[in-house]
């Protein structure tokens, strides 16, 4: 934790820079979404990579996760495991696919 005056004064500059970087990457996200990549899935992937990078900056710098006590990392490790399970859940649905003809199908 940044606790002494000198360190905090240094980190103030850092916070402003990170804010600026986040703004720039937001603009990049918008621009990237207009680029026609081979598949839209790739657009989503690239967009999510940029978003994860931005989220990482917020968590590491603004939320001070780059220098925290071990107990917080232990709590978050559990959270990460359960959150990942949530996101692989939909893979199980592929084992039991629902096949139906929607009224809204892309024309040939």
């Amino acid at each position, binding site marked *: 934790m940044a606790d002494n005056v000198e360190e905090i004064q240094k980190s103030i500059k850092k916070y402003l820079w990170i804010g600026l970087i986040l703004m720039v990457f937001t603009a990049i996200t918008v621009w990237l979404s207009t680029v026609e990549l081979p598949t839209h899935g790739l657009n989503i992937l690239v967009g*999510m990579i940029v*978003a994860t990078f931005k989220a990482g900056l917020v968590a590491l710098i603004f939320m001070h996760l780059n220098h925290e006590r071990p107990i917080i990392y232990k709590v978050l490790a559990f959270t990460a495991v359960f959150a990942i399970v949530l996101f692989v859940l939909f893979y199980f649905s592929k084992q039991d696919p629902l096949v139906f003809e929607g009224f809204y199908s892309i*024309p040939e």
Partner: protein
Amino acid sequence: MEIPYTVHARPDTGLYNAKIGIWLFLASEVMLFGGLFSAYIFLRVGADYPWPVWDLDVKLGLINTAVLIGSSVTVVMAWASLKLRRFGQYKLYMAITVLCAGVFMFNKSLEYSAKFKHYAVKLTDGTILTGHLPEDDHHKTIPYQVKFGDITALSLTIPVKNSAVTADPASYVVPHLEGEPKFKTADGKEIVLNAASFAELRAQALAKAAADKKDSASVQLTAVSPLKAAAKPADIFGYTETTITFRDGTVATGKLIDDKMTLLVDGIDTRAVAQPEKSLAFDQRYLAAWQPTFVANRDHHIAEFEKHFPTRDKSKSATLQKESLFLKLHSSTPPAAGEAHGNKHGAEAHAPAEGGHGHGHDYPTVVLEKNDVTFFSNFTPKLNTYYAIYFTLTGLHGLHVIAGALVLGYFLVFNGRMMREDPEHLANRVEVGGLFWHFVDLVWIFLFPLLYLL
């Protein structure tokens, strides 16, 4: 009793207690939003319609992203200022943070209200028309109503035993009738139908049903003079050419006057139509004049795509499908030939669906036959799964913004004494509130691209 370890770290954890508390809370918040993001994936993978992309007002979403990032900077600056005992700066940064929350929610309300006023109408061939309902001279929306005339009789059924539906004409029928609801009962008595007069009729009918050992009682009323009725389709149970069934089961006999829907069309989405240029939207009664514009716009976008990506499969490009088959209308009459796409290419294709509703914009008005409409809704959760998850996620996120702003605002307004006497304690409070605020920002970092852009 004093709460321990609010300022100094607890020896075993190395942290003050509130910090452990907020991180445990944030861990549970990760699971809450994680579950909803997981639901988003399920809904998107399983959607049987083109998932909306660039359907919301991107400019507004971008402004809100900047506002939240800015407030994330100011809240961490507020904490740092407090650590350095610069109280004036702390107050300023905190005030800006709370102000940012206000701006964010104000923009959100603009976005929501635009969606509530915007309608999508699905036609029988799969075409979707988007647009607005007409407005009266005072810019008040005229709701879509089914109109009945010559109502001569009401038939009410009252189940003897408890039932989910029981006749309650005072609440479900009378509000939709025009003029004084004067009726004659079966024994020739003239009444004004209201809660009191119906209670009397109901008691008589139930007594009669009990005497006859029947399961339900019925009441027949004849209008003294023919009545008119008007109701939104959602407020009634159903109707035919000659009857209208209200939500309490009461059936009125009359004549259907009008169930056509007037729509100021701002978009024609033909992505679900086998032959888009023959869409029902281009029927002579509707928007036949726009068909050349549609074809020109479609061919232009397909040619552009073929020029830039000659080897790619056109049917697999969601962007091309939207640009070529979802025509946005910006004027009441079609542009002259050759100007169909004009300089609006790109911008037009990505324009938010709501447009400017009414003011400054003119749209062609169509009067849709009921037989041609299979479904209509404003842009609310019932429209499709995208809007369902959009409102769930942004609504929950908005609640978090409000909660965070309340907490940070409380520190600013009510903790002045703590700031002067025990600034380290307040700094810890601000750090904890700030951690929550950063989390709210972090969620938005994912929400913005997922709901607005991709």
